[in-house]
């Protein structure tokens, strides 16, 4: 499996504080990588570095063999790397459909193509029924899914999902897991942050554990759940 995304020795400082220190890992093509760690471990910061909101203070991020750290978020998105936000950021006063159309414009040659693409994605993510609802009126579960739909509409090769399942009720959770699986079936590589252990264990091919901005472990779900350090640092105090 060739690496699609390589994170090489990435550190990120804020003022004097280190949010990430020398983190290395790779994500293989077609893989689902789970990124876990206690609160404040630097998971979202890692996403922000990969996605281009922050430039790494040291180290670099390589995507499809090209160095992308230092590029702007929109340029990185244009190269096929899309993300969702932990705190959902829908375009509040747009309808669900328009939200997705907006993203679809990135690759669509014209409006008709963008709409067609968006409609397909809404069906794929089971949002078709609420396509005309203004997105700020959607319940949280659907807004979370809209985040995914919007990211998908940019036709990415890789998707960063930041707690896309947090705060969902059990039936919504099932649905979202199904959607993530189907995204994987489409051949899209996924990196996912998730607190929900059941979710992360069931969908990840591999897991990277961060604590205090450093990589603690890297391995298959089985390896991770058996790793005593991880259990001590994370699972032990976790209440999941």
């Amino acid at each position, binding site marked *: 499996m060739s690496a699609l995304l390589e994170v090489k020795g990435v550190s990120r400082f804020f003022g004097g504080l280190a949010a990430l220190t020398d983190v290395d890992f790779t994500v293989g093509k077609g893989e689902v990588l789970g990124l876990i760690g206690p609160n404040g471990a630097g998971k979202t910061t890692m996403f922000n570095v990969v996605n*281009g909101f922050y430039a790494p203070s040291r180290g670099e991020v390589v995507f499809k063999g090209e160095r992308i750290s230092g590029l702007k978020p929109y340029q990185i998105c244009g190269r096929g790397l899309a993300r969702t936000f932990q705190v959902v950021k829908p375009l509040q006063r747009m309808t669900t459909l328009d939200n997705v159309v*907006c993203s679809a414009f990135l690759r669509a040659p014209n409006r008709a193509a963008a709409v067609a693409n968006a409609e397909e994605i809404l069906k794929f993510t089971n949002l078709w029924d609420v396509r005309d609802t203004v997105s700020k009126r959607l319940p949280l579960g659907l807004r979370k899914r809209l985040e995914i739909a919007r990211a998908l509409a940019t036709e990415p090769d890789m998707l960063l999902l930041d707690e896309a399942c947090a705060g969902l009720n059990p039936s919504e959770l099932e649905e979202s897991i199904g959607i993530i699986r189907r995204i994987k079936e489409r051949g899209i590589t996924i990196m996912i942050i998730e607190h929900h252990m059941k979710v992360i264990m069931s969908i990840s091919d591999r897991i990277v554990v961060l604590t205090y901005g450093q990589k603690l472990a890297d391995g298959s779900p089985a390896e991770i759940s058996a790793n005593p350090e991880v259990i001590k640092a994370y699972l032990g105090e976790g209440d999941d």
Partner: protein
Amino acid sequence: MTYRKPLLILALLAVLPLIRAVPGVNANYWLHNFILVVMWTIIGMSWNLLSGYCGQVSFGHAAFFGIGAYTSGLLYVKFGLSAWWGMLASIPVVGAAALLIGFVCLRLRGPFFALATIAVGVILRIVAENLTGFTGGDMGIMIRERTWVEKTWYYYIILALAAGTFWFVDRIIASKLGYYFVAIREDQDAAESLGIDTTRYKTIALVLSAVLCGFAGAFYTNYMGYIDPKVVFALHDISVMAIMVVMVGGVATRWGPVLGAVIMILMAEIIRTIPKVGTAHHTLFGVLLIVVIIFLPNGVVGDAAKLRRLLRPGRSA
């Protein structure tokens, strides 16, 4: 979007000069006011594009209005051309100015952008006052003879310009640009992460908006025949007025600027001329503004549903 309603309204507006035939009506007076209303509709639509749709609230549209007006005036004074050429010439001039202004101001977000644009408007006014050799300074520019005595032609020109602007903004909003503008307004970070080059699209919005506003300025020179820095670069009477026209009418709506211009210009004029009110007309108008914004925070069009709800019990009683 259909164009039936706009065309119908345009047709209605196109026959307005016929009020000339109605006995006892001050046709010239009303046409003057209509011309101002239509001119403000354009300024409003221009502001709406940048601030309403793209969310970059400008407090400095007088800058573009003034540059447009001075382009016209200077062509006349310096090159002896008809000031009408200013309409054409203002496109590159205002566009270039907007690029430069955007380069500086669009790095800023929210209220900081707003404050920076206030400064731009004021700086341009003072520069125009000080470059006496070039702009004529405070003496302004006077066009010796206006093209027509009758207002009909002015009215049709500005109406055509407004119709064009309406159509243009409509097309923009329905296109990819429109989606991107609104995306930037709603959440700049999300937009950026969805592949939108926010700086580029904000600049596009600014330049388009500026050029439209510049047209209004160039028209103003031709129509009024006199400009000076304090008039065309006015903070309160142009920049803030542009904001009020759109906000009272309805931000990010098709008809907001139109209705806003009607309210802000015609209503202001009608209130001004109510007998016995005298100088208190500002108070009346100020109270009207306060009431509108408290009860209809998204403007008359934006809160049309709310307005209807407010009016309904009144009607049944």
